[in-house]
């Protein structure tokens, strides 16, 4: 038996809850405020077109303004999360289907995610974008803010049409942002692949809406909630939605566009795409699965669960093998998306078998991790952006030792690295902890086999998390530590002031989210509560201590934890320097007495990935070039190929090619044949009519 879900928080937490109730009179309709802010984003974007070439206007005015709007959105979403849903209708769209909007706790959580991350990224972009990089700054500003606005619209849309419009505008805007450097063929290819898969996904989502619709012209989400679908059709709707949203989220095997597109974009855009845009897909899955379809059947969860676990492992393993820092981060995003969808699947299963508390727990874990990932991944991506600007280098093999040249970027990035590696007391750990706690109760699911298999999922999640730590050591160590692998890295410069602000904002987010889990969870739990998945929280012992499920004594108190470590470290430092001395002498590295040490002797990115490539060989299609002892200029090269790309997509394309070739035979340019076609068609139709 599972005890009731209890999180403990006292005054600060409940203050965070009661404050909005006080403010609720003040802002009668938060949704309208959100819509205003979205409009503000659009106007900022359009303002960019006024003087497309002026960096002063765009960099010093517009982007900071955009950041402010983002922050405001985050604040509103935060303080109104406990309010009941409110809706509004805009008289545009299809004749009998105006744009419906609705704000509820679920939207709030993701709006907060979007606003907070966007604030950091925008302020960073203010210092980041420079002239003469492909698209004109003004146009860039437009695309950027349209991207933000459309993401926000996706989160508040309340009917299929406005949702799809916002959804595809998002894809379109991001596509143009990805192809900023359209002169490079590989970037064009990336953009093409991205938009193609995004569009296919969108059509799948569209069809799923088509299944869920409540009848003629009944495309509002309310109608869909009301519509009573036969289980089979509901299942089809969910699977279609899963395919569509999976394509956008980069769920394996629909992930191929992601590692191409994310690196191709300018770093702040990569940050938004990885940190926020992928989450809109998560939002869609939750909206359809739990809200529109009511998450009735437990077996729906199996799809996200299986795909999620596979994506998690697949993504992190490939991340370990990458040599391009942004590709590495992109694959790590696939991993995190995998973890998120695993959680969704778990929540669906729990919900389907009626274990309300655990469903709530899993859902909260998912939302928490989504927010965390938004902060960490944005932080890391903008960090790579600064590195890219400072060195003009994306290849890990040509970086190194940057912690001396760019301390700000290095230390903020270190926070992100530790967080995404899931280390306490930072935020990444909390969400994974919650997810593991949820998994720990999975054996109580009253389904044969499932109750055996689910706990193994925990093992895979743990494996993914551990591998993430490996990847992150590689990422940080190779870029920032060791000796510079290139001479010109010596004159790398640190981030500009605005960039620093952005970095610090995101890093601070990682820390705060890590230290105040109770308060965050108290807010997040509004979502399962409003969706009617889980009962409200029961208050309990201490505001600083997190307890997942009462009836199992397990707890985690990050503040205490951090204090303890800090205390010990401080005491150690003090005592060591008191009892002994603090003399330090600088000398050449010892390195077992080897004298002529140079940068090329450190581990390269390939070298660091070697054990993974060795252990997970079946995942990769590898071509190695090994030097023979007699090579005059020995060189080692290894190329990693994605088996899914070569095994699924390439055959698919060539298949269509072949079919097209076969069909082309119909059209040989001979008029007699064409007449024959008409003739035969005529006879056939006449025959039908007889």
């Amino acid at each position, binding site marked *: 038996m599972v005890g009731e879900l209890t999180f403990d928080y006292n005054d600060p937490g409940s203050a965070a809850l009661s404050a909005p109730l006080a403010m609720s009179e003040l802002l009668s309709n938060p949704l309208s405020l959100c819509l205003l802010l979205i409009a503000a984003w659009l106007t900022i974007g359009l303002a960019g077109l006024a003087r497309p070439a002026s960096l002063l206007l765009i960099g010093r005015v517009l982007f900071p303004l955009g950041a402010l709007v983002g922050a405001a959105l985050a604040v509103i979403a935060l303080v109104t999360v406990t309010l009941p849903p409110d809706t509004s209708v805009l008289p545009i769209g299809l004749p009998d289907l105006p744009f419906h909007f609705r704000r509820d706790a679920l939207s709030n959580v993701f709006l907060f995610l979007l606003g907070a991350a966007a604030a950091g990224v925008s302020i960073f972009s203010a210092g980041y974008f420079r002239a003469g990089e492909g698209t004109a700054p003004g146009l860039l500003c437009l695309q950027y803010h349209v991207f933000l606005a459309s993401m926000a619209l996706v989160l508040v849309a309340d009917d299929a049409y406005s949702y799809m419009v916002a959804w595809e505008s998002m894809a379109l805007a991001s596509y143009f942002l990805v192809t900023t450097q359209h002169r490079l063929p590989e970037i064009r290819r990336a953009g093409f692949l991205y938009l193609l898969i995004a569009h296919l996904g969108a059509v799948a989502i569209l069809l799923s809406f088509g299944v869920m619709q409540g009848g003629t012209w009944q495309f509002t989400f309310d109608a869909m909630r009301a519509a009573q679908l036969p289980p089979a059709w509901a299942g089809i709707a969910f699977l279609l939605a899963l395919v569509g949203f999976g394509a956008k989220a980069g769920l394996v095997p629909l992930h191929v566009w992601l590692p191409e597109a994310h690196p191709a974009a300018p770093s702040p855009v990569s940050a938004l795409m990885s940190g926020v845009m992928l989450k809109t897909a998560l939002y869609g899955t939750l909206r359809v699965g739990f809200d529109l379809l009511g998450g009735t059947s437990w077996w729906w969860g199996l799809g996200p669960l299986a795909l999620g676990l596979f994506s998690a492992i697949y993504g992190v393993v490939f991340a370990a093998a990458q040599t391009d820092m942004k590709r590495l981060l992109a694959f790590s995003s696939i991993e995190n998306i995998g973890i998120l969808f695993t959680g969704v699947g778990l929540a669906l299963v729990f919900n389907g078998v009626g274990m309300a508390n655990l469903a709530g727990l899993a859902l909260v874990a998912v939302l928490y991790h989504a927010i965390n990932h938004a902060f960490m991944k944005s932080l890391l991506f903008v960090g790579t952006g600064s590195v890219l600007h400072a060195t003009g280098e994306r290849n890990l093999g040509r970086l190194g030792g940057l912690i001396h040249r760019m301390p700000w970027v290095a230390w903020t990035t270190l926070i992100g690295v530790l967080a995404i590696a899931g280390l306490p007391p930072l935020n990444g750990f909390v969400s994974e902890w919650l997810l593991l706690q949820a998994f720990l109760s999975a054996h109580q699911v009253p389904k044969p086999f499932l109750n055996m298999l689910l706990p193994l999922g925990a093992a895979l999640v743990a494996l993914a998390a551990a591998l993430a730590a490996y990847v992150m050591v590689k990422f940080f160590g190779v870029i920032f530590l060791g000796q510079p692998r290139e001479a010109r890295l010596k004159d790398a410069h640190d981030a500009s002031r605005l960039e620093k602000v952005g970095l610090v904002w995101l890093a601070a987010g990682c820390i705060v989210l890590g230290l105040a889990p109770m308060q965050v969870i108290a807010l997040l739990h509004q979502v399962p509560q409003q969706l009617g998945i889980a009962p409200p929280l029961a208050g309990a012992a201490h505001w600083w201590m997190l307890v997942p499920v009462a009836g199992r004594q397990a707890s985690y108190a990050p503040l205490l934890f951090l204090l303890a470590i800090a205390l010990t470290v401080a005491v150690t430092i003090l005592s060591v320097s008191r009892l002994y001395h603090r003399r330090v002498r600088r000398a050449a590295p010892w390195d077992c007495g080897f004298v002529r040490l140079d940068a090329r002797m450190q581990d390269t990115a390939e070298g660091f990935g070697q054990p993974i490539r060795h252990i997970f060989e079946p995942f990769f299609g590898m071509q190695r070039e090994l030097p023979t002892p007699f090579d005059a200029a020995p060189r080692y090269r290894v190329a990693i190929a994605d088996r899914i790309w070569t095994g699924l997509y390439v055959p698919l394309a060539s298949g269509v090619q072949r079919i097209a070739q076969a069909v*082309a035979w119909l*059209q040989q*340019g*001979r*008029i007699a044949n064409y007449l024959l076609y008409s*003739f035969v068609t005529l006879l056939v139709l006449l025959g039908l009519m007889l």
Partner: protein
Amino acid sequence: MMSLDLQILNLLAALFLLLAFAMLSQRRVVGLVDLLAMQGALLCAATLLLAWRTGETHLYVSALLTLTLKVAFLPWLLHRLIRRLGVYWDSETLINIPSTMLLGLLIVIFSFGLAQPIAALASTATRNGIGIAVAVVLLSFLTMITRRKAMSQVVGFLSMENGLFFGAMSATYGMPMIVELGVALDVLVAMLVLGVFFFQIREQFDSLDLHHLESLREDK
């Protein structure tokens, strides 16, 4: 025993069909045009007979149209074109003659079967003509498919038009006047356009053989 004029009408219909078969097998372009002219003549005769029988004035007009256009003008135009362009023979048909005839036979059966229910409904005396008309339309379709020379395709097209008119006549004693005029006008314009066409094609490829016109294709 039906009345004489009806018998004649049926005879004309049969001849009409026969001519269609003749066209299917005829390989000399000049011959084709003559056959076309004869078809026109038959059509005209049938229309006249019908007009006399029913006393519909507009049938006289349409007979007149047929006479001027299909019996006199178009054959003359085509002959002139043939002489000017010097295309007398069609090259080998795409399908050899006997099998074409066989196909034609099947088509005739099909179209008769098709027309029976309609003919049953028809109140006109010439209801059996409908089947013939359908057959002729399809046969000339077949002619167009099997020919290689632009000229013979045109002839096929015109005989298809004849078939249509025959159908209209035998089903409903002809279309409303205004429509008939419009159709006739269209056919006339079409022929003029064709004339221009032939010369353009000739000056491009100095031949009217259709295999020159097979460059726009997808299978390369």
